[in-house]
């Protein structure tokens, strides 16, 4: 038995084949660029929050949940409810002060209060903050262990890293807080920087 194989002989790559190959590669590049653009537009999409009573205008990430029912604890807070585990939170609160109150005093008071309620609360640093332009501010960063209050969730405790940016304004201290899982702190810091830049009070 003899097998006669009829092979398709093609001497080289034709122009059409070459262009076809280029177009296919170009399609892949276009896909990556489009996804990068989509990602940038979706991740950085924001919603405007306006509170005329407190004189606050803020922009927060789209799809985060806003809560204005904080009573005396906070003016408003936004949380990323899509996160698994600890939900990243941005919070704006106002504490009444006198005209001669120092920023450090307010931060120390906050630290003392939290040390009694949070597990393993630890101040990491307190320093001046220059990210708000000419407005004088201080920034305090800290860590604590957060445990889910619902025992049926059976979730492990999370190491939470927090940041307080404190500004004294019209006999009140405005405290802008970010609370994030320590593992995603750097990533969320970018969003918080943007939140601070757009915040007006």
């Amino acid at each position, binding site marked *: 038995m003899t097998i006669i194989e009829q092979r*398709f002989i093609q001497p080289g790559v034709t122009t059409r084949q070459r262009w*076809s190959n280029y*177009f296919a590669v170009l399609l892949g590049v276009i896909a990556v660029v489009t996804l*990068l653009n989509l990602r940038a537009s979706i991740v950085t999409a924001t919603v405007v929050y306006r509170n005329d009573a407190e004189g606050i205008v803020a922009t927060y990430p789209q799809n985060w949940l806003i809560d204005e029912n904080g009573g005396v604890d906070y003016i408003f807070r936004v949380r990323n409810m*899509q996160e698994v585990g600890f939900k990243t939170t941005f919070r704006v609160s106002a504490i009444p002060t006198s005209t001669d109150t120092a920023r450090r005093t307010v931060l120390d008071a906050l630290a003392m209060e939290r040390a009694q309620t949070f597990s393993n609360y630890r101040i990491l640093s307190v320093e001046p903050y220059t990210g708000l332009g000419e407005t004088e501010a201080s920034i305090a960063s800290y860590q604590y262990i957060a445990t889910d209050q619902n025992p049926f969730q059976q979730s492990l405790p999370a190491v939470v890293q927090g940041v307080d940016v404190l500004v004294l304004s019209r006999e009140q201290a405005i405290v802008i807080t970010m609370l994030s899982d320590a593992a995603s702190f750097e990533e969320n810091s970018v969003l918080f920087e943007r939140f601070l830049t757009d915040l007006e009070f």
Partner: protein
Amino acid sequence: MEFGTENVRSTGTGYIVPPVEDEEIYPYARVWPGLAAMAGTLFGVVVAVVLISAVVDPPRNIWSPLGVLLALLPGLLWCLFPWLAERRAELGRERLFAVFIISALLANALGYPLIQHWLAVDSWGAQQPLFTRILIYSLAIGTIPEVLKYLVVRYVAWQDYFRIRADATAYSIAATIGYLTVLHLHYVLEASPPPDTAAIRIFSTTAIALSNSLIVAYGISEMRFSMPSPLLLPGVISIASLISGVVFAVRGNLSNTRLTLAVSTPRLLISLIISAVLLMGISLAMVFLFNTTERQAEEAQGTGL
């Protein structure tokens, strides 16, 4: 014998029986039966795993090894059916295993990190409206993997080892299975899902990826054996990507847990059925398309066109 006698009379030659004509032998391994056997066996195993999991709750400590086994299953079945058939064929396809391995390496080095870590599509794509989600899935799950797999086939086998149109299908399937093996291994090792969930997901992604690869294989074969427009190949990659994007987005809507006050679970069987129907439908369509193109090419050759 009456028939033989008749023959001798009519021909008038010295033959007692007419000379037996040489039987035309197809020396290459047939692609479609191998694909059907592989996909059918995979479907059977997945259904068996789902049924067994419904009756016997598998202990947690075997989830991971069972998951790894399920992740390797498409690759094992590919070795058992299409690849073994190639070994047995008179003129088996060369470099098939090289395509499989290089595709797997490319998935691990570029495809998986690009989609999962650099673009992190899961973290921002899943919550978008339907049409945006279709676009995101089309590009991330369709276009990028298909272009990468095409590049493997193009630079490993296309130039020197393509002999017939079916070669494009065989090499595309090898690239797809190699690529998927890596994705499935990442999935089961990172998520440690229950066996039934892992089995359904593995079948679903395999079915969609194989459907895509069959469509792209048509473009690759046309590019090799015909003189189509240079836009044909990117066109078929786009069509395959769009199909996978639509199926992923719509399947998610149909199979996800309903928001209800009663107990509700994901309807995984719907996902399984959609994937099986998709693979079957596209396979049949591509068999028809390949056969038609082959016949037209033979007719054109016969008429000297």
